[in-house]
């Protein structure tokens, strides 16, 4: 008798989420979507959009929205952003292609060298990783400096545009 009652109360406890879930399920399913499925047109959207990562460069592409009321400063910012995005994308695409190509060559070389073991060990791969880093050291440093300067430039421009928008909004009520 005791066992029955505890089992029943436990069963009742388990039923409660099911009643709730059933109530939810009975409502018509409306799907609310956030974002867009395809790459949007710069002139048709109200704000910037960011897309899925590019398979080659792993960077996410931006669509910078275009407003015919934009000030010259905002236009400069937008064009500079597009330019720097493209430069970044280009660098990383080439870099990653080179990495995978050299990795393949290394693995092939290793197989041709006729080692008995079928899989290349992590320690052997680390020889490749080190050589790749050493070969590209100078390029990485140059990219680093360029990227930092460009990033700061974009930051300063963005701040100027932000101030401009703020001042315009404050000016409007007085006009």
């Amino acid at each position, binding site marked *: 008798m005791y066992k029955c009652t505890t089992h029943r109360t436990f069963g009742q406890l388990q039923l409660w*989420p099911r009643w709730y*879930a059933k109530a*939810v*399920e009975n409502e018509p*399913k*409306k*799907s*609310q*979507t*956030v*974002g*867009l*499925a*395809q*790459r*949007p047109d710069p002139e048709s*959207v*109200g*704000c*910037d*959009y*960011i*897309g*899925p*990562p590019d*398979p080659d*460069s*792993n*960077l*996410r592409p*931006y*669509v910078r929205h275009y407003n015919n009321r934009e000030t010259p400063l905002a236009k400069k910012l937008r064009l500079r952003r597009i330019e720097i995005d493209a430069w*970044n994308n280009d660098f*990383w695409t080439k*870099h*990653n292609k080179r*990495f995978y190509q050299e990795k393949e060559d290394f693995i092939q070389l290793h197989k041709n060298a006729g080692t008995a073991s079928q899989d290349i060990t*992590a*320690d052997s*791969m*680390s020889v490749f*990783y*080190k050589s*790749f*880093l*050493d070969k*590209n*050291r100078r390029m*990485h*440093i140059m*990219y*680093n400096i360029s*990227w*930092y300067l460009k*990033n700061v430039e*974009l*930051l300063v421009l*963005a*701040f100027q545009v*932000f101030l401009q928008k703020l001042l315009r909004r404050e000016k409007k009520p007085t006009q």
Partner: protein
Amino acid sequence: MIGVLVRRSTWDYLAAPSSKCQLIRLTATVSRRPWEEPSTQGVSSCGNVKLLSSISCKNSSSLAGVKKEQTRCGRLEYLDWMPSPFTNAGKTMSNYKKLSKFRLTSLVVITAMGGYAMAPAAFDISTFAMCALGTGLVSAAANSINQYHEVPFDSQMSRTKNRVLVTGQMTPLHSIGFAIASASTGLCLLYFGVNGLTAALGAGNLLLYTCVYTPMKRVSILNTWVGSIVGAIPPLMGWAGCAGTLDVGAWILAGLLYAWQFPHFNALSWNLRPDYSRAGYRMMAVTNPSLCRRTALRYTMAISGLSLLAPIFDVTNVWFALETMPLNLYFCYLAYEFHQKSDSGSSRKLFRFSLLHLPVLMLLFLVNKKNWYFTSSEQEETTIMDNKTISIHPPTSGLGSVLPVAVAAVPR
């Protein structure tokens, strides 16, 4: 690896996901959406989409296209192209937490609080709180600036590709604004609420992390040494906040934390070598694996040595050395295993134990502190009198007799 990703994901874990949902979650971890969090009512920043439902859906869209999944879990769908910036309604704080690397910041605050507690001076709750809060804010600012600088590199590594700046959820200007606000608030709190030395250490640490460590990660393997200094400064800040000066005990504590960073980080980076190499980070694990293993072992021995030094310099009692010996010896043993075997298993064991080792070590340090009074007022009357003005504070409440009290309370 997928299991790890699922555990660390920001998806909501609903009460009863269907088996289909589970499968989607597992298969979609590689291309999961960082925006998928439980959302409440609100409007997106673009103003043209309203988020109404209270639970979000696990979207299984891949890189190729969009799949609309109508599961019984929810009604919200995140498509491929998202507005930028974008915040899930009610998730502004969550974005800031991700930007400031909240978990790491909390650990830094804990080490600072530990430094404060271990200092041989009076415990003042308001100074303690301001020290902790100030350290947290400065650390949050440092992490935000780091994330701002490293957007293209973070995109390359699977560990970091879902950060808020990489996914466009925040703009770089916003993140720098947050960093400036956080750093100035934190430094003001430290300067006006604690003391000048702590504020100076905080500012120095911020500069070291953002201007030296972050660029150096791509230039030379010495970045690990600089990063270890960055990790060792918060307890110094806590100590300075309490005692006003940095004495031998502070340096021993800082030394312990400095030495701890090496086995911790070397073990962590061992399994991330392919990612670090492709992203262009110069870490010991990639460029000099044997140095990586040797350093991990060497610094575990340094930790053991420093733990033995603590009683000699009168910072802790002798029991500290005895209590930490098994802990440190096991740490050395794991580092030795890592040195010999150097595979993913031994590195993971070492990393996990390092996460346990540090809190236990700090707790033992605190418990075995030299100037730890459980007394009544008689003991205070036997303080040394000399020419300097000394004011003896008899404990007024029960708590006062338990907390460590300065032998000579001089103004800071």
